[in-house]
């Protein structure tokens, strides 16, 4: 009697579960990638061999465009909220609660204080028509808008840090970060650096792209 070989079908694996897991992971990564609000100005930073990474939280970014215009971007909604409330009160910018909320949710900004209300209420197309850059007064640092913004932003973050420390949470102070374009003329950078040293900020960081170290 001929022996019947047991019928073997080709092994097949049901991949449905694997596919589910893969898409779950994908969804997780897509959601944790934070959506950046539109950058007001594109900056092409120079390269350096430095390998220090940008600190995760608590950065006050000073953007300098190739034309020399200065934009500010304080991170953290708590500090931004406190900042805009203080600035609105101190400099009578005339912002209502809705404008302030727009500021908190926005990205970098670069308009003179008296134009801030109109800027926040304008849509993306109109925003291009506003004067670009935060004014810097090189003669009197107390009147310099940039100096006042930076000082108040640092203060807002410092107060937030104190509040969080009372609750036992760790929050760092602002790390000042300068992001300027390769072709930004030096006088524009010098004005920003002088503003910083005038308000006693002597430690800051420059954003660079990676360059290979010739010594290695």
């Amino acid at each position: 009697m001929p022996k019947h070989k047991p019928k073997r079908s080709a092994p097949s694996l049901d991949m449905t579960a694997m596919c589910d897991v893969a898409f779950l992971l994908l969804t997780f990564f897509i959601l944790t990638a934070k959506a950046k609000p539109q950058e007001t100005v594109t900056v092409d930073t120079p390269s350096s061999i430095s390998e220090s990474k940008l600190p995760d939280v608590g950065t006050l970014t000073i953007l300098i465009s190739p034309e020399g215009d200065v934009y500010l971007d304080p991170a953290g909604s708590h500090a931004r909220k406190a900042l805009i409330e203080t600035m609105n009160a101190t400099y009578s910018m005339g912002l209502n609660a809705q404008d302030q909320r727009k500021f908190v949710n926005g990205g970098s900004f670069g308009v003179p204080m008296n134009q801030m209300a109109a800027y926040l209420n304008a849509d993306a197309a109109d925003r291009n028509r506003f004067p670009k850059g935060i004014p810097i007064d090189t003669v009197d640092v107390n009147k310099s808008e940039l100096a006042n913004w930076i000082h108040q932003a640092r203060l807002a973050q410092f107060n937030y840090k104190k509040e969080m420390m009372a609750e036992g949470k760790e929050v760092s102070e602002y790390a000042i970060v300068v992001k300027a374009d390769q072709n930004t003329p030096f006088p524009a950078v010098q004005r920003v650096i002088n503003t910083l040293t005038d308000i006693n900020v002597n430690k800051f960081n420059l954003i660079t792209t990676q360059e290979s170290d010739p010594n290695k």
Partner: protein
Amino acid sequence: MAEIQEQGGGGGKDGKARSKKMSTKVDLTAMVDLAFLLITFFMLTTTLSKPNIMPIIMPEKKDINEEDLEATKESQVLTLLLGGNDKVYFYEGITNAVLDSTDYSAEGLRAKILDKKDRVKAEWGEDEKDDPKNPGQKKMVSKLNVIIKPTKESRYKNLVDTFDEMKICNIGRYVMLDISTQEENFIKNPAGGLQFSVEDQLKAAKGAEK
């Protein structure tokens, strides 16, 4: 890849017309590959978006003492004047300074800095300092002091490249100061010599001359 199995067609012997039921199986391997590729992409782009930084520490305006500046020997000082069009001018010391120029390439600026560093080492030796990376051990640090003075024609990239060279050439002591009118004239007229003294350098460092 996909399999189609026919069932129910075998029951046609009954004479009743039965429609062929087909069940399909789709092989999901390709779908999973795609999903993992997308995951890898998103994982990498969120970490790549963190840019690198170069920490800068500026001297406090009031901190500069007379003793600090005068104790440095003239022959240990190299002054770099960052000019326009990616050109670097430099001179050594202060008295009888001769202006030379170079570019930002490895053979240009880096070669000149390393050359000056070697000459300073030959003449003055090196300093011994505590090594922050290996506590308890000392490392040799060059006595060379570099003063970086950018002109208004230079661009930001020049400044960052210069700071980068400081790191590459392992220069421990360097500072960025404002350029003076005497040095600006020196660039325009190198043959005229540099009328710049240590007191002028001090005043510039303290920011008294704006």
